[in-house]
């Protein structure tokens, strides 16, 4: 992977953990990190609400695992706020999900560059996972089916970072 385009004030956030398929957000970042433009801020987040604490940025790119909008390994790309309602359906009540966080972020801190790049201010990448169902063991390893998707998503996101 190579990059040369200046992408100042861009923040790339991976939401994930060190466990099972939930790792995908972090693993995509690890693929991108060695090749990313040097002025991109990279944040490994544990929960969606961590996105609220990302310093002001003109472009925010978030990658997270997702569930229920396609087959395992499917890569989704949405430009906030144009996200299908199905995907925005809240799935937990203990904390805020990613789309609630993005809505809250809009209220609290409109993207500084919204006037110049309104459509690309927030970009969301989701990778469909399978091992997140109740009664399934959270494995320390990643599902094999996700490895190609992680590589593909990393390349696509890197393309966005370098050419947008």
């Amino acid at each position: 992977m190579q990059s040369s385009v200046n992408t100042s004030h861009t923040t790339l956030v991976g939401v994930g953990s060190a466990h099972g398929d939930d790792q995908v957000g972090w693993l995509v970042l690890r693929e991108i990190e060695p090749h990313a433009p040097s002025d991109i801020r990279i944040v490994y987040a544990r929960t969606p609400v961590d996105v609220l604490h990302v310093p002001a940025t003109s472009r925010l790119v978030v990658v997270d695992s997702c569930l229920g909008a396609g087959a395992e390994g499917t890569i989704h790309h949405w430009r906030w706020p144009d996200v299908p309602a199905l995907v925005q359906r809240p799935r937990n009540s203990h904390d805020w999900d990613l789309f609630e966080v993005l809505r809250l972020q809009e209220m609290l801190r409109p993207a500084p560059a919204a006037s110049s790049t309104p459509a690309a201010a927030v970009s969301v990448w989701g990778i469909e996972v399978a091992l997140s169902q109740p009664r399934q063991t959270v494995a320390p390893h990643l599902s094999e089916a996700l490895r190609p998707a992680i590589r593909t998503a990393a390349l696509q996101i890197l393309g966005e970072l370098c050419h947008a």
Partner: protein
Amino acid sequence: MTEERVIHVEALARVEGEGALTIRVRDKRVEEVQLRIFEPPRLFEAFLRGRRIEEVPDITARICGICPVAYQMSTVHALEAALDVTVPRSIRQLRRLLYCGEWIESHALHMHLLQAPDFLGYDSGLSMAQDFPREVTRGLTIKKYGNEILEVLGGRAIHPVNVAVGGFHRLPRREELTALLPHLQEGLALSIEVASWVSRLNFPAFTPSYEWVALVHPDEYPMNEGVITSRTGEAWLVNDYETAFEEIHLPHTTALQSRRSGRGTPYFVGPIARLNLNWDRLHPIARQTADGLGIAWPTSNPFHGIVARALEVIHAFAESIELIQHYQPTIPARQEYSLRDAEGCAATEAPRGLLYHRYRINREGTVDFAKIVPPTSQNQAQIEEDLRSWVTTLLDHDDRHIAQQCEFLIRNYDPCISCATHFLRVTIDRREESCSPP
């Protein structure tokens, strides 16, 4: 003619529970109030049977994503009571620090995103954020600083993994904790601002007579230890919890409701009860702040819960700073213990109130029996009593307003079912019936 009004609040499925409310009013009299809570945490008692005691703190932590530390703390103290383990002062202090982190993050979330919108006339934290971005940002910052304590000491912010029977799996290095101090100092200043802000909210005039119940400790604001104490002046050792309080089944709910044994009366646990019964043990910075807020403590107004939480957040920040300043890592991180057939119980103060656990274990090191009584089920009967009185004052209003006000009242208790801002969806069933005179 008899007029009957039935206000239904339909059940909504949530990850951690379901809530529903039915109020039946006949001829301007509240005939029936039923708050139904279906609590998945109950299933954990069965999950625990046969599991190794080392696994229990990590399993019970999964009962709640906001207050996992409370479940871990009650678990390890109950198991340590069974195993006759006494943890050293340094471990005890670290556990208080962990609890402080949880109180901060849990209270901050509740105050800013769940309860404040009720006072300010918004239907959600999101809609409130548009007009109060500074306050919401401040609340989220405070929550983040609480989470940072959990991350460093617990291994992660949600469902921490570092708590062990006998101590911790790993003790933090001193510099890991001191690195938190700048944020904790800032959090203390921010929380004092929050207390001032919430004390200026418009509190409904509603002051029922409550039996407050909380732990009371001779030397400190209660978290992990103490005597269970009532406003009535009665007190019980934790071992006697189940003689003083009983759980009963009611036909309208799958959750058990706690009441005072023998009397069948409800009681009130949570921040207001803690504060009312432990005022002189609150950190001096919190007390000093409270003195300027214009609210007289003890208070019987449940709507003052938001102020009680703000004062507890001040306490938690102030105590966290002191604990870290005096922290020296101890070896070992965990006390050794010998397995045996035994039983032990513990009560700690979760953000929402008293949380009681009892376990029976065997010499193979597995659990034979577990009993968990969360604060929400202890408050459930009191919430129904409150609703009965509260609705009586609202009968001249339309059903929508009554339902809104009921939610407002229920959220004072910060029940787990209100983790989502709008947990109650309301449908109204109006019925009028003509009756022949006798």
